[in-house]
């Protein structure tokens, strides 16, 4: 199929990370895959993890999660086709297009920016939804939205935003939560009072309102939304880590290590952090799903990011009230949101069953 215009051939396609967001997605995926590999090969966690992932449903959840991560990764590598300046190509062809866009174009046979109709069409429809005399140019398995864009394409584009909005705030909040939580719990005293004061103060403002306040005062873009989510979501984990560290600090083996003159950083690294792993891991997974769901609520309240499921659902709210009902945008966007959150929840539950000492005690 010739999906790049035949008379001009792009010279030297080159891989580039056009935005910091793309680098961030790649780093996140690398961290996630490394973590899975690390746990799988670990001599203590490895066998327990395989125990947790026994059965069909956890494996299905893991497969779905890996599928979403693959799509997000494919949507993060982009490069420009370097057309000559005077070549007659559409403006969209000169923009950087991602690996996912290119694969999608290969499958459907036309470039993704041309894969549009003039108005909405039902899934597998042969004609336009409102005017049955007009034939469609292409087949759309999930139909098209009011602007004629393919719903399947839009839904798939939403994967990256969702993975991103769940993962980047997580990466922002993890160091804050671990640093503040461990130091407050381990050293106690004035430092503990200060940390507790900071998180009580932030937590006393409702999270959603604080988020909206931050996002409405600053500009609405992916970076600001991520920072706002990261700044507001570290409190739960910090509180848990602080409590657990306070408990660990009093245990005999830590006292013994102190008596033997082991330096503080080594005690924290060797004896405290490994004992916090299960809390951190489980909270991370729960926070991820909470963040993805939070984004859709933000989108409904008008703080939507471009190409996100939340925005699709928010836009579809008026379509569902019309007669005849246009249901596919709402249904498919929320179906994919549901599948992502469900798969992460299943993986989280399996990991919890595998490594949380409380979940397995009987």
């Amino acid at each position, binding site marked *: 199929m010739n999906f790049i215009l035949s008379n001009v051939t792009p010279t030297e396609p080159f891989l580039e990370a056009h935005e910091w967001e793309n680098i961030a997605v790649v780093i996140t995926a690398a961290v996630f895959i490394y973590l899975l590999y690390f746990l799988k090969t670990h001599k203590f966690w490895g066998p327990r993890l395989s125990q947790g992932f026994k059965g069909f449903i956890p494996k299905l959840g893991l497969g779905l999660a890996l599928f979403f991560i693959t799509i997000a990764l494919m949507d993060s590598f982009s490069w420009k086709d370097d057309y000559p300046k005077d070549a007659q190509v559409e403006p969209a062809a000169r923009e950087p297009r991602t690996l996912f866009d290119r694969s999608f174009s290969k499958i459907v046979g036309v470039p993704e920016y041309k894969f549009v109709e003039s108005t909405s069409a039902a899934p597998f429809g042969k004609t336009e939804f409102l005017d049955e005399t007009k034939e469609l140019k292409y087949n759309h398995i999930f139909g098209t939205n009011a602007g004629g864009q393919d719903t399947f394409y839009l839904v798939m584009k939403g994967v990256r935003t969702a993975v991103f909005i769940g993962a980047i705030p997580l990466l922002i909040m993890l160091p804050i939560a671990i640093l503040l939580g461990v130091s407050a719990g381990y050293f106690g005293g004035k430092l503990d009072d200060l940390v507790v004061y900071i998180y009580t103060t932030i937590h006393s403002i409702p999270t959603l309102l604080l988020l*909206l306040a931050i996002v*409405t005062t600053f500009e609405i873009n992916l970076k600001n939304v991520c920072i706002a989510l990261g700044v507001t979501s570290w409190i739960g984990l910090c509180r848990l880590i602080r409590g657990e560290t306070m408990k660990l600090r009093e245990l005999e083996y830590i006292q013994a290590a102190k008596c033997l003159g082991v330096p503080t950083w080594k005690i924290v690294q060797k004896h405290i952090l490994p004992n916090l792993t299960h809390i951190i891991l489980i909270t991370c997974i729960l926070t991820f799903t909470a963040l993805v769901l939070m984004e859709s609520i933000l989108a409904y309240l008008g703080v939507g990011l471009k190409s996100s499921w939340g925005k699709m659902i928010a836009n579809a709210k008026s379509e569902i009230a019309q007669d005849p009902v246009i249901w596919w945008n709402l249904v498919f966007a929320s179906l994919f949101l549901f599948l992502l959150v469900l798969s992460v929840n299943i993986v989280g539950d399996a990991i919890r069953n595998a490594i949380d000492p409380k979940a397995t005690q009987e």
Partner: protein
Amino acid sequence: MLAYTIRRILLGVPTVLGTLLLLFVVFFAASSPDQIARNALTEKAKPEDIKLWKQNNNYSFSDEKIEEITKKEFGDDYKEKVDAKEIAKWQKENMDIPNFWNSHENGWNVVTKTTFYQFMSKMLVFDFGISTYDKEDIWVKISNGVIPSLAVTVPIFIVGLIISVFISMLAAMFRRTYIDTSVVTACIVGMSIVYFLYIIGIQFVMAKTLKWYPISGWSDNHMIYFITLPFIIGTIATVGESTRFYRTIMINEINSDYIRTARAKGLGDIPILTRHLLRNAMIPILTRVILSLPFLVMGSLLLESFFGIPGLGRMTVDAITYKDLPTLSSVTYLSSIIYVIANIVSDISYTVVDPRIRLN
């Protein structure tokens, strides 16, 4: 006990002040006074109007004060010595009252003649002023919205609590059987659905297709007619998460020695569950209940705006939509005050529920 209560209340004061500082930074310091004035007036307001509004609302110095600080900066005879354009530029940059530190004043006025101090002193006495969107008194708006909000949230909360505690006790009782597994599965599936998919879906089926309930609307005299559908939706949407939370607690408790002892001495299932398990699981349940109280008062943003209920939640959504900063900051401040109070109440209530907690 009394000493502890007093100390706990005094510890709440710095939290409230910190909240105010955070609110101020987020709502005011980050957007310029010009922007606030434009939000309050119109987007295309004239510069003179903006200046007047800022002076009337204590965001910038009065004309005399500007004259005075210009003299201080350039000398008394600045009009002859310095170029008029430069003066105008300098005045434009320095006419706003500083946020935290007013170096043009002496003594305490350095702190008190600042935007933050004025904001804080108004908020501390609950003087919220008027909304910039519909020019109504914010207190009146808030007090009108409380009843509809509570009418929506309280039934959802109480019924949801009873259902989820009941189901979680069942799951703990029959742990490691298919009952427990299906409860956990249902909870995970329920938690994975976005809140407003429940709203859109159930509203579509029950109100639009089957026409059992009104799609949206509100009337003070027919409250039950209008809150039934939000009640059903809210209960279904929230019960999954809380069941999962309570199940973890119940499973922790049901493995304890006292349950085994109770069973060994021949107690039936129902007395064990109600008299032993539930009482010991009371502390985490109580914490969760008390800390949810602020959210009950503040209403549900999504339910209220989807069903056209004139409560605090919809007021907040409107304030966000129209960038009504005074209303938004007042609502946020009020809810954080309620949260701080709820926190204090929950700490004190531990001593009532659990005699083991000794205070010193």
